[in-house]
């Protein structure tokens, strides 16, 4: 679901032979920065406001996850088509080699865009991205997505009881709005997992070598969804990349460790 700051505006970009109206949330000033959201949809969280103080943040909503347009997911049949949709949207937005941040599912999208179209981004930040698979480090995506909802925070946060974690999953205050909000989040997850089910592996390991831009890989050491073992898998395949592993941090890096992740990300982007 999209919650938001007052200064976030919504723009639609017509792509994919006019079959899709991609919703992009935009905020801030400065050089362009693309943000690709995780599995449950775009949530405009405090650290995006922080980024918007230095950059113009463009955050596209995965097809089907924009409220009121659920069937848009039907227009994108494969993961390859999803990448083409985004590549087109970046051109239509008039963005010249923006920096990009991809988180979790969005990290898989951003990494594959950078590998498939080596000149599309200027810099790349991957926050605990999906996209690879090791038999000795299974990613419990199915267990999380189809498991009891009360267990979900334990996959995402190092400290599920923390105020930040609770705020990140907060439901609307108006009880009448709660079913709609839950339904939207469930549907969002259905739209993203379409390209990540049951295992989010589209052969990215064989394409990562094509990434040619400076890349920062950030991981929480206690990640219970995509284990930290994958940090070095990404790092070793992307030439010249930096890997930053943050202690006492789970899958949702900016929620669990806002200051340390901000220091790492802002320093890298400025560098």
């Amino acid at each position: 679901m999209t919650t938001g700051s007052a200064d976030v505006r919504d723009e639609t970009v017509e792509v994919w032979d006019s079959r899709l109206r991609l919703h992009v949330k935009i905020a801030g000033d400065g050089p362009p920065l693309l943000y690709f959201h995780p599995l449950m949809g775009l949530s405009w969280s405090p650290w995006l406001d922080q980024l918007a103080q230095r950059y113009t943040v463009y955050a596209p909503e995965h097809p089907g996850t924009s409220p009121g347009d659920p069937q848009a997911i039907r227009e994108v049949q494969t993961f390859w088509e999803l990448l083409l949709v985004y590549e087109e949207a970046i051109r239509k937005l008039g963005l010249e080699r923006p920096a990009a941040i991809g988180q979790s599912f969005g990290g898989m999208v951003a990494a594959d865009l950078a590998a498939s179209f080596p000149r599309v981004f200027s810099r790349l930040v991957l926050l605990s991205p999906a996209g690879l698979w090791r038999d000795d480090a299974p990613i419990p995506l199915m267990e999380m997505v189809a498991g009891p909802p009360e267990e979900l925070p334990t996959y995402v946060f190092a400290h599920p009881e923390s105020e930040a974690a609770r705020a990140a999953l907060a439901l609307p205050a108006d009880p009448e709005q709660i079913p709609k909000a839950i339904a939207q989040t469930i549907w969002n997850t259905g739209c993203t997992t379409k390209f990540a089910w049951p295992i989010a592996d589209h052969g990215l390991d064989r394409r990562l070598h094509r990434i040619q831009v400076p890349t920062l890989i950030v991981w929480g050491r206690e990640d219970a969804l995509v284990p930290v073992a994958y940090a070095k898998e990404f790092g070793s395949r992307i030439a010249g990349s930096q890997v930053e592993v943050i202690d006492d941090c789970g899958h949702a890096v900016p929620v669990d460790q806002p200051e340390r992740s901000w220091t790492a990300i802002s320093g890298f982007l400025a560098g």
Partner: protein
Amino acid sequence: MKVSLFEQVPYRFLPEGFERLHSSVVTAPYQLVEPGRMTESLVSAYAELLHGARAGFDGICVTEHSQSSYDISPNPTLLASAVACAAQAEGLDVAITVLGRSLGKTREPLKIAEEYALLDCISGGRLIAGFPVGLSYDANLNASLPAVETRERYREHRELILKAWSEPRPFPWNGRFEKYGQVNIWPRPIQQPHPPIWIPGIGSPGTLRDILQRDYSFVYLSWDGPKLTGRQVFDRYWELAEEMGRDRNPYRLGFVQVVAVSETDERAEKEFAKHLQAHYWSGPGAIPRTAMAVPGYAEPAAIEGMLRSAGHGGMLARLRTATYRELVDSQVAIVGSPATVADQIEAFVREFRIGNLMVMLQNGSMPRDLTEKSISLFGEEVLPRLRPIWDEEGWTNQWWPRAQGTTGAVTGAAAGRQA
């Protein structure tokens, strides 16, 4: 009306308290199984279905679930095939209903086309082809197919199967999910262009509209019995039928009901109470709610509707602990003497205009001898009361097999009854 015996195939020897520790689907631990008792569970189901065919039921029904302790029937056409051959050999004129192979779950739809066709051939044209989407846990967890694509796969697979059955010459199929160069299956159904098609579902408006438009027969599959959720689904169906210009032929509608029959009401309770409780607790009651709708399986409006109506109507959320009394009072299970059972069934069948009734007489830990007694009593004393219910209205049942030739082909035995 037509009355069929429907069997799921539970493992009958689950330890007490299973549901407190385990899920009955996807992750149900196989270490609990003793091999000999698995054989007994599977073979009993086969024997009971055949017993039902001998007891005069119009049809036998089986269905498909994988990775489940409450229905060990990963491919129901295997079981149906064994019953069909035995029925042939004995000259029993019984419809073979596979309710069915799950079209939203399969990775090989042409196998379903072939298997159904084979069943139709060996049964002499007695197949009823069930085309279910498949439950979410089965399609999206067991088969691990993306939930949001489940219905798209279903529609393509159904179209492919229908074409494979009736297209005279080999044809290419360039679908989104399936691609074939030359489709030319052997055998094809005796019943052309296709056997009667029954669509099981839980009654969502989109499904009902599709069924009526294509002129198939709807089977309301529910664990709730007729009382709790029946009215809203059946009323919606008949209203839609009227709106779409379809007649009120009761054979457009089927329903599955759990039943147990004994000599008296008291005896029925004594014999069946613990088995029925065990069935609901360790079977449907032990399916995690989230496994019934993996994200993407249901549209946002439908999810919102489910969330807003949670706790109203259905019994599903309470099945894991429901007492015998609750089950019987709510008619989730109809249990008692032949007269009690016949009275209750007749009342709701007439009220909701149900033409195809499927009764589940084996459930949970119920042993074979007790099940067969229940089947016999139903066949002797309940069936004769139900069968003529719609006779006076004079409808044609175009959703019943158009059997050709005789039974007994396997042994050359005398011709059986015609449908």
